[in-house]
């Protein structure tokens, strides 16, 4: 039902065949030992063996199986068929694509030996021996007694000392702990604070002035607490219904999913199609997709029952979760690459959904948790039986794969249609590039010395143009590709590897799930399970009976609401993680989440309606003595907003934010390839796009500067809790970056036409969603008045007329100058100062803009209380 794009040579299945020992006669073995092995050792091992840690071209020649499975191109040795054996072709030298050995052709009689050897079936005693079965010393049943592996339990109603305080069930659990520790909750937050908190937490945007005023009026007009809470509930519902909720909460999930648009690692090639997963996540949160369904789609979307092609396409995009991790695509050794790919998938899946570090059991039993090495290989069997499609071009990345073609199934294209002329140009480009390769090959055949790097570059160009062309139909319609997974045709038998090493296989491990989370002896898949077993694995994670799944997501949501989880280590529920501060509350949330059909919106609302969440953030000395880390929740914590939210908020208050979702990715112009100058530029330029930050390019190791400065994660690992650092580099960004000064000018322009006495109030409502205090008003008045006194031209925020011209129509023209810092020409500007005999209003505007910048630079703007 789907067509795969074949841009590259078929990906060879890395097979670790160690089971068959063919009958080999002593004579044959002797022939190998005397005629073949010495030649291999002398001429080949240097570049193609484990002992030298080299696998040029992905090829190793030091075991029988490695020789037969071959490298990147084809099997090196096909028994009984010298003509199909690439090794034989290579040692014949003259017409070979890879004449070997590089130092010179072997003597004819040696070549003849190889022919004879292959013809006799390539007998080869270099078979990897199985290691003795690995035994685990972990006591699984003992391990099950750990809190996280016990099923959640709904607690009976608690006896409360402070019976009048709770508003919801959550509050009952919280106040019980507060009482226990002699803590007293602070008063409720003011409606202004609460409104701002709700907007930022739920949709990641500040309330507009109107919204802030309207909701405050309604809350304050409520006749009693119940009435006020009804208004709060209404606001919560309105925010949850907003399409911006998905952008906010989808971004949270992308931290967990280590979402990025490049491979990272050694070469850092761009994933051109990762953005589809981004949009899928945002849509899923907006649709309030049941979380168990969300899990199934990401792990096994391609295997779920479907009604139509559109659904299949969406599910395949979801499985991109497994495809977009960090990869070392320059790795020569295909088996190693494949093992690392599987490892990354195990790590991401178990951390994201189970907050469990199964990947620690790759080389030995888990050092802290009851996870024997067998469990790792039981999961490895599942992912080994899965094909991962992440794209890239073979000429650019040694370990490239195809993508999944979803053209015509519903998902929109990410690029515009080509007209006839553009298409013809693209075809011409491809033909030229192909011709260049042919020419170069001909020159090589005719004995000319062609620089290898040049050949590589030509091939890369050919593949790049071919790929660019393949991205369109022959009528110029863009095709739709996605990253994702498919089952292999066959299940790959998987052996436990002693110390995780490919050449030390021990016993076969049947596919299955984690023992400590399963009933006794019920952790292995039935041998009738067809396909990879991913669907069974996904169903097992998403099951109501899995003691971790609901707790882990409930805790994540709690973390995103409060800035700290009930289990502080949100990605690790194991022995080296923290214990829950409120285990009964966590269980309550997990159970209720399942009862509410795994609705994340339900859970967000449940938390937002609690009195605990609506507390003020005010200080209380006695409480602080007892609980400075706020683990018992006696007040709300002050939280710095995330990098994306600060940027979005600046754009929002300056009136510049574009709320439409852009199509595709800003990396489109980069094309296929590794990260370099070509990527750096678009990433920098993207900062000038006024879209929400969730849509900015997300290239590993090349985060937009502002996001990096304010602690956005680099997506190398599952990361459910962000750092929140404070540094003078952030201050420098606020003081001096073109971005902030651009927003300051735009913000000033929003209020400059108001009468002076209204400007300050208007700005406070825009920026802080509140009115200024009288002291703040006084500070502002004084600042604005003092600053308009005549001064040297270099002191101007910007020359009024020029600044605003560029700002005409509410948008900036001239990205180039904006990037340089539009004030640039006014600063050292002796030349400007003379001609710009400025009007009073010009100066006033400068001062107003510098005042606006100060507002955007305050901690209050960048934090929620």
């Amino acid at each position, binding site marked *: 039902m789907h067509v795969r794009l074949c841009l590259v040579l078929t990906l060879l299945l890395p097979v670790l065949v160690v089971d068959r020992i063919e009958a080999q006669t002593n004579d044959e073995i002797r022939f190998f030992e005397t005629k073949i092995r010495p030649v291999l050792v002398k001429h080949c091992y240097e570049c193609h063996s484990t002992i030298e*840690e080299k696998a040029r071209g992905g090829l190793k020649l030091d075991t029988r199986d490695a020789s037969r499975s071959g490298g990147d191109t084809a099997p090196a040795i096909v028994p009984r068929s010298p003509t199909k054996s690439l090794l034989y072709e290579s040692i014949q030298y003259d017409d070979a694509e890879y004449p070997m050995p590089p130092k010179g052709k072997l003597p004819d009689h040696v070549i003849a030996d190889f022919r004879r050897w292959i013809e006799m079936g390539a007998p080869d005693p270099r078979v990897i021996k199985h290691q003795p079965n690995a035994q685990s010393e972990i006591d699984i049943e003992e391990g099950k007694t750990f809190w996280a592996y016990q099923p959640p339990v709904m607690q009976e109603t608690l006896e409360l000392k402070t019976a009048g305080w709770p508003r919801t069930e959550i509050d009952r659990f919280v106040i019980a702990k507060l009482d226990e520790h002699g803590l007293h909750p602070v008063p409720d937050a003011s409606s202004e604070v609460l409104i701002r908190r709700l907007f930022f937490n739920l949709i990641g945007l500040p309330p507009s002035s109107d919204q802030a005023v309207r909701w405050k009026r309604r809350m304050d007009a409520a006749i009693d607490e119940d009435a006020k809470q009804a208004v709060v509930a209404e606001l919560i519902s309105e925010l949850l219904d907003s399409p911006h909720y998905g952008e906010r909460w989808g971004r949270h999930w992308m931290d967990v999913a280590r979402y990025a648009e490049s491979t990272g690692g*050694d070469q*850092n090639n761009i994933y051109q199609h990762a953005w589809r997963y981004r949009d899928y996540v945002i849509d899923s949160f907006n649709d309030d997709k049941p979380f168990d369904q969300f899990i199934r789609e990401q792990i096994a979307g391609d295997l779920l029952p479907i009604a139509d092609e559109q659904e299949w396409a969406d599910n395949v995009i979801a499985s991109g979760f497994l495809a977009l991790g960090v990869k070392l695509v320059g790795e020569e050794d295909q088996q190693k690459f494949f093992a690392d790919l599987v490892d990354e998938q195990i790590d991401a899946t178990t951390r994201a959904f189970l907050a469990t570090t199964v990947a620690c059991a790759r080389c030995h039993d888990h050092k802290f948790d009851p996870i024997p090495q067998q469990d790792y290989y039981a999961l490895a069997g599942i992912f080994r039986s899965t094909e991962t499609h992440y794209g890239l071009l073979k000429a650019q990345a040694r370990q490239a794969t195809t993508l999944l073609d979803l053209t015509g199934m519903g998902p929109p294209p990410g690029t515009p249609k080509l007209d006839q002329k553009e298409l013809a140009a693209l075809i011409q480009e491809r033909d030229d590039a192909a011709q260049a390769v042919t020419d170069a090959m001909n020159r090589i055949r005719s004995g000319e010395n062609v620089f290898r790097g040049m050949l590589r570059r030509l091939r890369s160009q050919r593949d790049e143009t071919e790929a660019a062309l393949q991205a369109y139909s022959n009528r110029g319609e863009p095709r739709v590709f996605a990253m994702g997974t498919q089952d292999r045709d066959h299940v790959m038998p998987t052996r436990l590897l002693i110390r995780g*090493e490919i050449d030390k296989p021990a016993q076969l491990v049947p596919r299955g799930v984690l023992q400590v989370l399963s009933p006794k002896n019920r952790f292995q898949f039935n041998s009738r399970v067809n396909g990879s077993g991913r669907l069974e694995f996904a169903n097992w994670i998403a099951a109501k009976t899995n003691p971790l799944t609901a707790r882990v997501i409930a805790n994540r949501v709690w973390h995103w609401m409060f800035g700290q989880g009930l289990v502080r280590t949100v990605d690790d529920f194991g022995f*080296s993680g923290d214990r829950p501060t409120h285990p009964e509350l966590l269980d309550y949330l997990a159970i209720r989440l399942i009862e509410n059909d795994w609705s994340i919106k339900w859970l967000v609302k449940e938390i937002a309606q609690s009195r605990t969440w609506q507390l003020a953030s*005010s*200080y209380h000395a006695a409480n*602080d*003595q007892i*609980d*400075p880390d706020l683990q018992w929740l006696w007040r709300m914590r*002050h939280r710095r907003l995330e990098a994306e939210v600060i940027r979005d908020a600046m754009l929002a208050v300056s009136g510049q934010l574009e709320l439409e979702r852009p199509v595709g990715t800003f990396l489109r112009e980069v094309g296929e390839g590794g*990260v370099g*100058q070509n990527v*750096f530029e678009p990433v*920098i330029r993207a900062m000038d796009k006024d879209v929400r930050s969730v849509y900015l390019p997300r290239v590993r*190791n*090349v985060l937009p*500067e502002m996001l990096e*400065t304010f*602690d956005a994660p*680099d997506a*190398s690992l599952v990361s459910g809790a962000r*750092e929140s*650092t*404070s*540094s*003078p*580099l952030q*201050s*420098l960004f606020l*003081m*001096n*970056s*073109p971005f902030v*000064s651009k927003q300051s000018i735009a913000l000033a322009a929003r209020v400059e036409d108001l009468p002076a006495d209204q400007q300050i109030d208007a700005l406070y409502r825009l920026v802080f969603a509140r009115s200024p205090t009288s*002291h703040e008003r*006084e*500070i502002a008045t*004084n*600042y604005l008045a*003092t*600053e308009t006194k005549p001064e040297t031209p*270099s*002191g*101007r*925020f910007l020359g009024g007329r020029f600044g605003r011209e560029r700002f005409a129509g509410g948008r900036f023209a001239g990205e180039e100058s904006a990037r340089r*810092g*539009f*004030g640039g020409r*006014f*600063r050292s500007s002796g030349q400007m100062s003379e001609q710009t005999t400025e009007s009073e209003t010009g100066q006033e505007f400068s001062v107003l803009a*510098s*005042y606006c910048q*100060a507002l955007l*630079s*305050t*901690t209050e703007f960048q*934090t929620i*209380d």
Partner: protein
Amino acid sequence: MKRNYCRQRSVSFTRRDALKAASAGFGYLAFAGLAAARDAESRSALSPKQPHRVPKAKRVIFLCMRGGPSHVDTFDYKPRLRHDHGRASSYGSPLCASSWNFQQHGESGLWVSELFPNVAEHADQLCLLRGMHCDQPSHAQAMLQMHTGSFQFVRPSMGAWTLYGLGTENENLPGFLSINPPTATGGAQNYGNAFLPAAFHGTKFTVQDSSQRNRRIDRMRRGEVNPYGINNAVNNNLSTERQREQLDLIAALNREKLQRDERNPLVEGAIENFELAFRMQDAVPEVMDLSDETEETLALYGINEDPTDGFGRQCLLARRFAESGVRFIELGHGSWDQHSNLRTALSGNCQETDKPISGLIADLKRRDLLRDTLILWGGEFGRTPYSDSGTGRDHNHKGYTMWMAGGGVKGGLSYGSTDEHGYEAIENKMHVHDWHATILHLLGLDHERLTFRHAGREMRLTDVEGSVATEIVA
């Protein structure tokens, strides 16, 4: 102990008093008067303080080799290991001899492997700590313990404690810098202030990595948007005076909030950071501009050559920051986590760092800075004398080597030892807590008296542990 604690606390009283004084007034007059309060305040937090005793070292340069460098291949000579190569060990896997030869160096005759030919020339300056051990064999936890003393709780890093105890000598630069810190393995906690006041937080600088690719990107960065080593060091809109007024405005607004909140570390941190950032605008580009260094000096650090350029620049910057009065400078290099491929990867790491480190020692020495600059070298743990894979070594927290140089330690000294194979520390063992206690001691600080009250307890870098290795103090 008590007296010191009172002195430390008086710091925060001053801050609070300043705050009250600042916010008691009104209007622009009070606002203008803030400058004085501001100066008084940051001076009290970060200005130089008297240590508990006469210090041997005034500043620290910590060369942090992330991932766990193999001691048995570098600074812990184990002849038995070669002898027993391939034999089954009592620890599990077969023993694995070092692939490198060791030689004695200098008058002291310290054994150093051929991986560090340049550093070995300074053998008589080195104080090898060959009996190191810590509590955890996993990266994140050992890394956090090395930096903060604790692998379980969020605690201030030793740089923050140092700053808290001594203040800084140059208020125009961060007193505590971490250059290229790790993003994983504890992340920002490794240079965080935790419960200490925000002024003591470490500032992260990113300086080009040693890998070719990053260097290329960094050149672009520097060419395109970052000509001053850090971004946004120049304001294109405002004169210095006008910017000063704008920052006073920001500070006034932040203070308004702080007054309302009574306590809010986020605001306190921002107030400190803006002041520092303002002063850094001039100071940092100057320090990071290497154009006044001679060719000879650049060559000394291996700058502009492969593969030493990346770490060479970091080391030279460390000297420049040290000269400028930065109290605690940490440099990051890694990864040294060679589970396999030890032969090429470890020698690669050593080639990248050997000359730069040797250059740093030599340069500090000739500028008479080595005397009172304490250099620390090492990672979160070492590696096993046996090999699981046959081509690499495992994590080993039970015995490993770090070294110190300068700053009042005895040079040419080998202190402590591991067993015959280098597996476990057996003599003059030095736990990370002891290491911390000794570092503070060299800085003139008593690790038992350098305390801060948090959660009802007097907290220390060394918790309730730690003893000073007085034998290594010159």
